[in-house]
């Protein structure tokens, strides 16, 4: 899929719901901490994303969303 997963790490509270609801295991919790001290998610395998929008729907802090990339000419 031609998608990009965007995460604003400063908004994240590290609840792990986005990791749990993802059906194809695209996300995982990393050891990287943000300025509040929460473990933020990171993208493990972006090519398996189906663009279902579940992570965006369940994130209560508006920190993660999926964007379709603009199609490159001749790519």
């Amino acid at each position, binding site marked *: 899929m031609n998608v990009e997963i*965007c995460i*604003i790490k*400063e*908004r*994240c*509270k*590290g*609840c*792990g*719901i986005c990791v*749990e609801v993802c059906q194809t295991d695209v996300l995982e919790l990393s050891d990287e901490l943000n300025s*509040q001290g*929460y473990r933020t998610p990171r993208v493990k395998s972006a090519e398996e994303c189906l663009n279902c929008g579940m992570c*965006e*729907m*369940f*994130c*209560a*802090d*508006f*920190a993660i*969303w999926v*964007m379709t990339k603009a199609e490159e000419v001749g790519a």
Partner: protein
Amino acid sequence: MIRSSIERYHPADSFLHADSFPSVWCQGCGIGTAVYAFIEAVKEENISPKKIGVVSGIGCTGKVSECLKLKTYSVIDGNVVDYAVQLKKKDQDLTVAVFLNNADFLLSGAKDFIEAGKRGANLIIIYVNNFICVISENKVFPITPFMRMSIDNEFELPFNIPHLAKSCGASYVARWTPIHAGWMKYSLIEAISKKGYSMIEVISPCLIYDGNDGRIQDAVDRMKFYNDNSVMKNEEPTENLDLRSQNKVIIGKFVDFE
């Protein structure tokens, strides 16, 4: 938070104050999901942001009016529904949504809720029910589920809010949990386009107080608990909808007429 550090914006960011994030809600709280569903419903209906009024009261649910970039009003405890009725009277084109919690509703604002329903005010009531009124601490509160532990050990049947709303004359009554955010979104779309009094109850996990009692502190476990213990029954008679801690939570759309 420094705005220049964000390269791209969330699709809902045109409705949100970016400075109010990270929000005050706990990890895994249901209020954020309710706000997301509300924004998505407003986007779907193509309403101008100047034509939406949001009224909220005190507590965690009162912080909704701080983070939304709409016509928002934060009023004192108990006057929330009354204020929304006055707002709707002043400008008939306005779509007015009300975010209620237990303290605004059952503690002091129940009379306004009943009266507005009886007169058929054109409001959307989003009642965030987290089984908690912090003012009552560990004592029994009208919404405490039957047979749940409390400090004074008095068991009483909880208040049946959808039945109350139906008997007040609500034309749309539904109940969802944050796990059913997609259904919540479509329910809000139906409620916005409906003329009349519509109430949507959102059963939200409160991880601080509810977690102490149910011994589930983790956000993901709490979400799984609601997923396992809810059963969807559309058009169930509203007499059967009271919350007991041994039974499953019945969700769905119960009342829908013009």
